[in-house]
């Protein structure tokens, strides 16, 4: 499977030397090095905030370095704009795609440099479509150049982005977490395309957190930590535990596994939940003091079940009992009133009001409790309770007046948790609780979840990281195509047993 081309051209296409970059109040890059050869896949690894994205933005002309050298084909270049970088054949595919949904694939690929006809007055749509089709053929993908991008799956949109990069005669392609929104088959397809590009001599910078992917696709690995270059290693000979310890700067301790349903009383029972083909006859129960894991592939319907239980989306059928009593949950307000909280993976959009302070975010769901005559805010009391929760959950923030957008991912997550604890919610649904959170801060969040369960909260954890599910859950429910395909005890579950259930599609189940 591994295609390690050893006839690599040892001379780098691009080289970054001694790059320094500071932003007000923070040093993002210090003495950062990186080089990329023709036809190699070079993985760039590090925790969140290690400086990977910043370094790539320097390479692609988005940021100007404070000091250091950028060399392209051995010549020093002042990379002052992304346009310049693209002109030199250096393209980046961001984690969040930058496509115009209402335009076609071909229009997106050639945006800003459309072929013209009729004295340059009209866009030559036919030529544009033909050119786009040629690129797709070269990539061996079947995408209609005239199809609207907004109608395509994320995986296909990503292929359009890659095609766009190739249309610039890309020699260097930076891919930032390209598989984060792809399913298994789609990942395989992407890897094939990467191998083809390699064979054509394109150098690829591959930014990821996923060790198995690196093992399979990368030729070399460069590890960064705290904005600094740590080491560049050959991928084939380096054990992944070494890479991880270089990334975190310490050895990871192994963890204990939980098991059993817990003896606590049943706090939530969902029966016969249905919503079109997205949620199909989902039933489960949750007990006090337990952590229930929801595993499955992207799009299996886990988030949708959580949102339905929380009243954020309507359902076609289903009964929800909280503490044994059947209840109608038509809105998040109803859910919160019954002690159910939902902590979205997308904290910036659904969890936090990022422009407001730590104090306001922690207390937001409880504001009505802190008023005089139901009108005037008791700001003193708010500050006191916010301080108490900041201390309890060890939220790292200079003051409670700090805007939450300035906090790290882990601390933002703690603020959201604090919000629901203060609101006396005893059923907590975590959707990807450590998405976008550093490796170091992750274990702190894990400990916090376990502690909350010990204190008697009932917790659901939805996660795409099997390791996370295995580490936290006492019981694991696996979903596929909107159905629950099985339940596994946390102590006996393995990655394989989960994956089997997660891919148990309708045809196979029958």
């Amino acid at each position, binding site marked *: 499977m591994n295609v390690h081309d050893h006839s690599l051209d040892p001379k780098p296409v691009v080289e970054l030397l001694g790059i320094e970059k500071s932003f007000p*109040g923070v040093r993002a890059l210090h003495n950062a090095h990186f080089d990329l050869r023709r036809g190699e896949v070079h993985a760039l690894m590090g925790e969140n905030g290690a400086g990977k994205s910043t370094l790539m933005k320097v390479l692609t002309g988005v940021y100007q370095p404070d000091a250091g050298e950028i060399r392209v084909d051995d010549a020093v270049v002042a990379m002052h704009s992304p346009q310049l970088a693209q002109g030199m054949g250096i393209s980046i595919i961001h984690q969040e795609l930058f496509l115009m949904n209402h335009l076609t694939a071909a229009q997106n690929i050639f945006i800003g440099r459309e072929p013209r006809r009729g004295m340059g007055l009209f866009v030559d749509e036919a030529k544009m479509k033909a050119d786009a089709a040629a690129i797709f053929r070269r990539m061996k993908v079947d995408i209609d150049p005239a199809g609207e991008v907004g109608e395509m799956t994320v995986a296909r949109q990503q292929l359009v982005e890659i095609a766009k990069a190739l249309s610039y005669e890309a020699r260097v392609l930076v891919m930032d977490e390209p598989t984060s929104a792809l399913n298994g088959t789609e990942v395989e397809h992407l890897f094939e395309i990467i191998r083809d590009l390699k064979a054509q001599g394109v150098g690829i910078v591959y930014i990821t957190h996923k060790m198995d992917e690196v093992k399979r696709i990368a030729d070399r690995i460069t590890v960064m930590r705290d904005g600094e270059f740590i080491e560049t290693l050959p991928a084939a000979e380096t054990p992944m535990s070494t890479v991880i310890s270089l990334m975190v700067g310490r050895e990871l301790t192994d963890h204990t596994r939980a098991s059993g349903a817990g003896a606590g009383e049943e706090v939530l029972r969902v029966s016969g939940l249905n919503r079109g083909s997205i949620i199909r006859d989902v039933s489960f129960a949750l007990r006090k003091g337990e952590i229930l894991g929801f595993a499955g592939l992207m799009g299996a319907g886990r988030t949708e079940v959580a949102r339905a239980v929380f009243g954020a989306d309507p359902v076609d059928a289903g009964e929800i009992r909280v503490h044994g009593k059947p209840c109608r949950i038509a809105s998040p*307000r109803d859910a919160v009133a019954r002690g159910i909280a939902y902590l979205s993976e997308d904290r910036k*959009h*659904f969890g936090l009001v990022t422009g*407001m302070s730590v104090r306001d975010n922690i207390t937001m769901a409880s504001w009505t409790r802190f008023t005089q005559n139901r009108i*005037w805010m008791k700001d003193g009391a708010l500050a006191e309770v916010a301080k108490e929760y900041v201390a309890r959950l060890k939220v790292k923030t200079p*003051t409670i007046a700090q805007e939450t957008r300035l906090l790290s991912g882990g601390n933002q997550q703690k603020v959201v948790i604090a919000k629901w604890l203060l609101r006396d919610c005893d059923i907590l649904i975590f959707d990807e609780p450590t998405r976008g959170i550093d490796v170091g801060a992750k274990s702190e969040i894990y400990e916090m979840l376990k502690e909350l369960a010990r204190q008697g909260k009932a917790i659901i954890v939805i996660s795409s990281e099997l390791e996370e599910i295995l580490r936290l859950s006492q019981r694991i429910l696996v979903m596929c195509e909107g159905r629950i395909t099985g339940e596994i005890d946390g102590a006996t579950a393995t990655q394989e047993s989960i994956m089997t259930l997660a891919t148990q599609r309708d045809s196979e189940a029958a």
Partner: protein
Amino acid sequence: MTETTLAPAAPEKTGFLTVATLQKAVAFVVLILLLGFFSLFAPNFAQWSNMVNIMQATAVNGVLGVAVTFVIISAGIDLSVGTMMTLTAVIAGLILTNAGLPLPFGVVGAMLFGGFMGAISGACIAKLKIPPFIATLGMMQIARGLALVFSGAKPIYFNDTPSYYYISSGSVITRLIPGLEVPNGVLVMFGVAIAAAVILNRSILGRYIFALGSNEEAARLSGVNVDMWKIVTYGLSGLICGVGGLLISSRLNSAQPALGLGYELDAIAAAVIGGTSLSGGRGTILGTIIGAFIMSVLTNGLRVMGVQEEWKIVITGIIIIAAVYVDTVLRKKA
């Protein structure tokens, strides 16, 4: 500002000049500069009597600006404030002149009617999911049409209620402090502004307005009754328009049903010059009042200088763009 450590940024310790105060300070500095400029170049500008003129000229726009500030901070917009002001003035006329009821009925009636109509805008936005721009554009026409229908397209005079004139004109302060002639309308504006600032900063409504404006979805998922608070916000805007309607009709001693179109844009301009963000989540009442003062100082000063109305309009436009540009620059620096 450029300390090069890896410690998390601590913007609170960068001095007393945070962006918010800097923005307010900028608007204030512009106001002072304008006053200084006109004092030097416009003869007879710098007199107490003219300052009274300016304050009085700010009253209506200031009050409407406050109304629209609430809505803009909640990430909405209210295009109906101008004609809503006219409609509430007509309502006051119907109550006081046509029905002959005592003054308090007219005052309370006008404000409540404004609040009611505002709440209808809010309900269209919250329940029918009509974009605020469209809903209040519709309400702007509805209010304008109703003002003409209710008044029979004729001005309604307040000659039967002589005390009505004192809502805007005359001066309570002069009686307390002889010589300090600040017209009542100006006191009403400052009263509305102070009440609004307290509501915005101290009440639960104010807190929800900021939350809605910054991230409505997060507020909804926090269990906030988003629909209700939107209706209350637009209702409050309408209520304050009612105060504007009382001020203008008291000043003219008549409810002029054809007036009011275009006043909403002045109100929005005052809010924007004062640093309120049209994308929501950010803004202050003090800023809006300063913005309204900048506009009326500019107008008054240019008129005293004898500059033509046409150029006054051009210069106001330039000031709006400049204010938002300065705001953007400050925001980037932060």
